[in-house]
C-alpha cells in the first residue's frame, strides 16, 4: 500500500534497531534509555509492530497521557450523560471510543440501552448533518480530543453558524497537550531521557510547539509518525541525543508535520475556541490546558445551553489510571490490571479506549508462554 509500506520496510527497521542497540552498547552509562511516548496511538503502534521487545533492555518505553478518552474526567462524563437525559429530544453524538468509558453512573452505551438517544458518529460534520435532518431535536456533540480533533469540531461549528442550524451544540472537553507534558515534567515523578512527541497533534500545532521541552527542561523530543520506521527513527534520534547530551526537538515526521504546524487549522481554533483551565483525569486541574467555546458562540455551548448539575466523582477504589496517565507506573503495576480490570469489565478509562495504555498492555503485552 503506497505511503504505508515504505514506512514498514522490515530490512530498514532491522537496520535501525541494530543502530540503536549498537549506540546504547557503546554508552553503557546511558542504558536503558528511558523514553515516554506521549501519544496512545504510539503506544499501540509500538506494541502492534512488536518494537518493544526488539529493543528490550536498551530502551524502556513509558506510556504518556495521550489518550483523549482516558484523560476525560469522570465528572465530565457524568455531565455528558446528564445532557443526554436533559430533555426528551436530545440526541447525544460521540466518537465511538467514548461509549464504553465508565462514569459514576455507568457508560453511555448503558444509558443508551436504557433509552437515551446516544449515537456514534465518525465526524462532527455527521453530527451537524444529523441536526439538520432532525430540526425538532437538539443534537449535542461530545467534543473530546486534543489539538488533532478540535479543528474538525471548529469546522462543524462554523458550518452550523453559516447554515444557521440552531439545534447543534458542542460540549467542549478538548484538551491541549503541551501543558500536560509540562505538568508531568514539573511533577518530577518519572525519570525520562526523552519524549516521543505526538504526530497528529504536531501536524496542527507544529513541532516548534515542543521547543520548551529542550529549552526549559533540557529534554530531547522527537515528533514521530505511527509507522514502524517513523517510531524507530524517533527512538534512534532520541537515543543519539541522550548519548550526545544535546537536547533538541527533532521532527522525524516531516511528511505531515511542519515547524509552525497547520495555520488554517490554528486559525479555525482561534475563531471558535479560547484557552481555559481543564480537568484531566489523573492530573486534576491543569491551567491553560483546555478549549472552551468563545462567548460569541455561547449559543452553541452545550454546557451553557443545557445547564446540568453533577456531583464530584471519586475515582473507583484501586484504579491507578491517574498514575498510568502521568507515566508514573506501567499498567502492569496496577493490582486491578488483568484481574478485576479487563476490556470486558473496565474499571478505568485506560482499559477502554483503543488508545489507552492499559488496553494496549492487555491486548499485546501478555507473555507468550502461557
Amino acid at each position, binding site marked *: *500500500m503506497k505511503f504505508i509500506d515504505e514506512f514498514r520496510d522490515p530490512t530498514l*527497521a532491522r537496520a535501525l534497531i541494530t543502530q540503536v542497540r549498537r549506540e546504547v552498547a557503546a554508552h553503557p552509562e546511558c542504558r536503558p534509555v528511558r523514553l515516554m511516548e506521549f501519544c496512545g496511538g504510539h503506544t499501540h503502534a509500538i506494541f502492534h509492530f512488536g518494537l518493544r*521487545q526488539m529493543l528490550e533492555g536498551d530502551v524502556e518505553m513509558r506510556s504518556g497521557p495521550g489518550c483523549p478518552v482516558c484523560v476525560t474526567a469522570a465528572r465530565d462524563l457524568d455531565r455528558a450523560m446528564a445532557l443526554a437525559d436533559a430533555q426528551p429530544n436530545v440526541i447525544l453524538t460521540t466518537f465511538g471510543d467514548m*461509549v*464504553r468509558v465508565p462514569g459514576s453512573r455507568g457508560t453511555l452505551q448503558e444509558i443508551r440501552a436504557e433509552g437515551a438517544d446516544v449515537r456514534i458518529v465518525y465526524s462532527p460534520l455527521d453530527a451537524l448533518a444529523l441536526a439538520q435532518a432532525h430540526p425538532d431535536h437538539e443534537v449535542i456533540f461530545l467534543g473530546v480530543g486534543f489539538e488533532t480533533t478540535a479543528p474538525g469540531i471548529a469546522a462543524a461549528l462554523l458550518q452550523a453558524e453559516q447554515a444557521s442550524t440552531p439545534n447543534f451544540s458542542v460540549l467542549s472537553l478538548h484538551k491541549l497537550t503541551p501543558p500536560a507534558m509540562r505538568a508531568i515534567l514539573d511533577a518530577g515523578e518519572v525519570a525520562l531521557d526523552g519524549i516521543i512527541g505526538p504526530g497528529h497533534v504536531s501536524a496542527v500545532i507544529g513541532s516548534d510547539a515542543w521547543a520548551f521541552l529542550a529549552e526549559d527542561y533540557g529534554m530531547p523530543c522527537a515528533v514521530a509518525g505511527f509507522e514502524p520506521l517513523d517510531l524507530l527513527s524517533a527512538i534512534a534520534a532520541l537515543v543519539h541525543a541522550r548519548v550526545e547530551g544535546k537536547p533538541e526537538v527533532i521532527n522525524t515526521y516531516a511528511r505531515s508535520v511542519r515547524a509552525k504546524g497547520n495555520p488554517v487549522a490554528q486559525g479555525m481554533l482561534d475563531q471558535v475556541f479560547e484557552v481555559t483551565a481543564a480537568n484531566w483525569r489523573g492530573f486534576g486541574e491543569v491551567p491553560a490546558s483546555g478549549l472552551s467555546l468563545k462567548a460569541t458562540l455561547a449559543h452553541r455551548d452545550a454546557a451553557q445551553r443545557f445547564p446540568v448539575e453533577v456531583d464530584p466523582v471519586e475515582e473507583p477504589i484501586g484504579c491507578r489510571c491517574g498514575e498510568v496517565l502521568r507515566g508514573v507506573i506501567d499498567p502492569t503495576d496496577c493490582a486491578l490490571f488483568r484481574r478485576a480490570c479487563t476490556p*470486558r469489565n473496565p474499571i478505568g478509562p485506560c482499559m477502554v479506549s483503543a488508545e489507552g495504555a492499559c488496553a494496549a498492555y492487555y491486548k*499485546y503485552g501478555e507473555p*507468550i508462554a502461557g
Partner: protein
Amino acid sequence: MKTSAPEQVGPPAKRAARGRHAAAERVLLAHGSGGSLSHELIRDLFVRYFDNALLASMGDSAILDDLPPGRLALTTDSYVVQPLFFPGGDIGELAVCGTVNDLAVMGARPLYLTAGFILEEGLPMADLERVVVSMAATAREAGVQIVTGDTKVVDRGAADGLFINTAGVGVVPPGIELGPHRLQPDDVLLINGTVGDHGMAVMMQREGLTFGSSLQSDTAPLNGLIAHVLAELPDAVHWMRDATRGGVATVLNEWAEGTSLGIEIVESRIPVREEVRAACEFLGLDPLYTANEGKVIIAVAEESAPAALGILREHPRGREAAAIGRVTSDHPGRVTLETPYGARRIVQMLTGAQLPRIC
C-alpha cells in the same frame, strides 16, 4: 453469482398471475395476518422463487425422506445486517451462505434450508422481492432447497427493515469426521483467500465512505470448495471454521481456547486486499478482526498441506488461498502472530465491537 433482476426470474405464467396483486407496494401488517394477503405473499414470492415441490406442497412441515447415508447436521443463524444491500451481496445471499457454510465446515453436505422472515411494516415490496430472488439464486448455486418457512410482520419501528433466520440440514458422509479433537501440533492452517472484505464493504457502505468504492463483500457459499477438498483429502483435513463475525483472530482464539494447543500465524502470509488494508488503516481497524462471509480456515496435516493448498487454488472460491500459520504445542490456549520485524506478539480475542479511533 450475483442477483439478477426480478423480472428475469420465474416462469412467465406465474409472473402474469402476480400482476393482479401489484397494488401492495409495501409490506403491510395484513401480510402477516395469516389471511389472504399472507397467502398471496407466500405464493407470489416465496413459492414462486424458491421453486421446489416440498415448499409448494405448503405443509406445516417439510418431510425429508430422501436423505443420503451419514450423520445428520443441523444449524441455525439469524441475519440482521444493515444496509440490506451492500457491495457484493445482500441480506438474502448472506442468509443462505451463512447457514450453508456452517454446515459445510462441519463436513456436511448442505441439503435443505428453512427461511423465517421478520418484516417491518412499510418495507418496500421490491426490496423484499430482490432479497428473495437473491436467496433463490444463492440456494441454486449452493445446491440446496429452501423447503419451509415463516413470515411475520411487525409494526413500523419494531424491526430494521427485514430480519431473516435460516436453519439448515445437511448430512456428513460416512468417513468424514472433523473436530477440535483432531487438531494436532504442526497442522498447517490454510485460508481460501483475502480477509476482511465483507466487514469493510459493509462498513464503508453503512458510513457512506466512498474512498473504498471498489470494495466488495466476499459473501459466497463454500460447500463446493469444501467438498472439493474433502473429496481429495478426506482424512488429512482435521478441522474447519468459517471466519465470520470477529474475523480470523476470533476463530483462531476459539480453537486455541478449546484445545490444549497454541496457534502461530505469520502476518506477512495473511492475504489482505489493498483496499481493505487502506480502509482499515484509515479507520484504525484490524483486518484480522474484521468479518468475512466467504472465508474458511482449514487445519490440515502437515504432510498434506501443499497438496491441500493446490486443491484449494483449483477452485474459483480458493484462487488466493494461502498457508497462514500452524498449530503448536507451545503456549497452549494462545494465538501468536509473527510481525514482519521478527517480533512475536499475542493475538487476543476481541472483547466488543471494533470502534474507530478518535485521533
